[in-house]
């Protein structure tokens, strides 16, 4: 049995999302294994980002359940939670395909916003902090330490006080991941983290994701088009096409699945007929 069936951190059960007459995601079920890097792949418009939006509370799913199993043993039904609680309580964090940093704030401040909740508690909702009471100073220092830790990991430490909007594209991508990690997530959802990166940056991203998984035990769910990234780092691949799951398994299994080849990966011209036969489109 695979990790994702034995010990899932997230169970997506019969997820359906309809927009009017359009079914963007239809009856989708899959598991994300604890500590795994899981890739969600598929052609454009397959509904991958819609799945992310359902998981992170942007959309309320039309049907289905999303069960988050915290390592503490708590279970959270994400589809019923307010958006900010999905991060605060269920410990799910995400990044965006089109980067959404707080451009006017410095890099350090971006990472501090992600640690808002513990700081608010420590400062007795600001009042204690202003009066210098309680453990605010200590937690503020800790929050800065956490931020520094991730800035070192993402190689941004030199520019901590620069407005986020001034960073170049590749740095902004890494900052988004650092910011998501500052919320202390158990599941990190990355929407096309390698999009627009050059091969060197892409390689660094792989290393970073491996590090996050290994050192922090954070499970990663990512949408990715770059098959070299997918095949190299993921433990588990789920393939969508037109909102329906067409394959689910190890990278090796998925790569050779004729349905995936027909819908997404493609083959040389002379092999087309063979694949069509295997899938049953003739």
């Amino acid at each position, binding site marked *: 049995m695979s990790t994702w069936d034995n010990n899932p951190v997230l169970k997506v059960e019969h997820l359906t999302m309809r927009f009017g007459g359009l079914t963007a995601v239809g009856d989708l079920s899959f598991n994300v294994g604890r500590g795994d890097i899981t890739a969600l792949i598929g052609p454009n418009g397959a509904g991958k980002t819609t799945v992310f939006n359902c998981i992170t*509370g942007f959309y309320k799913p039309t049907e289905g359940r999303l069960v988050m199993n915290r390592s503490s043993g708590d279970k959270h039904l994400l589809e019923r939670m307010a958006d*900010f609680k999905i991060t605060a309580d269920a410990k799910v964090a995400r990044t965006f395909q089109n980067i*959404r940093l*707080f451009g*006017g704030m410095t890099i350090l*401040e971006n990472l501090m916003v992600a*640690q*808002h909740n513990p700081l608010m508690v420590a400062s007795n909702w*600001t009042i204690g902090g202003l009066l210098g009471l309680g453990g605010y100073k200590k937690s503020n220092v800790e929050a800065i330490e956490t931020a520094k830790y991730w800035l070192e990991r993402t190689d941004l430490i030199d520019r901590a006080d620069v407005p986020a909007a001034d960073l170049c594209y590749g740095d902004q991508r890494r900052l988004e991941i650092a910011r998501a990690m500052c919320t202390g997530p158990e599941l990190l959802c990355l929407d096309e983290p390698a999009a627009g990166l050059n091969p060197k940056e892409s390689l660094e991203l792989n290393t970073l994701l491996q590090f996050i998984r290994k050192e922090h035990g954070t499970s990663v769910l990512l949408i990715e088009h770059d098959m070299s990234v997918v095949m190299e780092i993921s433990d588990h691949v789920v393939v969508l096409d037109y909102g329906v799951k067409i394959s689910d398994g190890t990278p090796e299994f998925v790569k050779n699945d004729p349905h995936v080849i027909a819908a997404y990966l493609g083959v040389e011209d002379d092999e087309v007929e063979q694949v069509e036969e295997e899938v049953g489109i003739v």
Partner: protein
Amino acid sequence: MDYFLQQLINGVTLGSIYGLIAIGYTMVYGIIGMINFAHGDIFMVGSFISLILIVALGITAATPVLLLILALALVLVVAMALTAVWGWTVERVAYRPLRGSFRLAPLITAIGASIALQNFVQVSQGAKNKPLQPLISGDFQLTDGGADGSGFIVNLSYMQILIVVTTVVLMAGFTYIINKTSLGRSQRACEQDRKMAALLGVNVDRTISLTFVMGASLAAVAGLMFLLYYGVVDFYIGFLAGVKAFTAAVLGGIGSLPGAMLGGLLIGLIETFWSGYFSVEYKDVAAFSILAIVLIFMPEGLLGQPEVEKV
């Protein structure tokens, strides 16, 4: 020159009061992009709460100085807290249910909330002016009027010092909150991208509520200062003060905290100087004309940021 100095002192005092109210407009606009038209009336409510507290505590000009200062400090804190509850309630009842609605909807409820507050105070407190005898009298005479006593005597009253000092202290405090604390950071984050802030675990609704609470408590301070300075309040003072403070916020660049302070100060100065040198009747015309001229050449206001496209 002496006359100029006197007008400057008066203008700065008036400008401080406008600035305190303007912060409420600018903070709310910054975070949810709406004009809280009920804010002027929150200021009026703050003024009435202060008056009631002063009468209830039996503070008069005869109260010993030390006790007077303590009692006024108590009035200030309690009035800030109670007015904050009003601000919170207005947001909770009139704006939050409409947050997902179209842009003009909360504008309409804001006008509704403004009328509701005015009428509530009119009915519960009566429509007549409420006078308060001066509590803090005395002043410094900065000039002696010349050897023959015919010159102009410049007065700097204790009250004016109190107003300006309180304003400066509070503005410094609130600037600190916005720039340095976790609450301020999350407010700025919500200002830039509310949805993203929520995804980082920030309770956006609570952050917006706290913005209203902060704005309302500053308006309460302005209310108390207005009461002490002019010695009379009625249920309608919120309207004109609100319009002026809103003008100040726009002049300084709406959404910008230092802009609101600067705008308040400028509107106060323009009004006083116009009244002092030209005519009292046209002081509002002067203030609004300056606003129009500034907006023609600087559409974002003096310290405003150019509008960034929100996704």
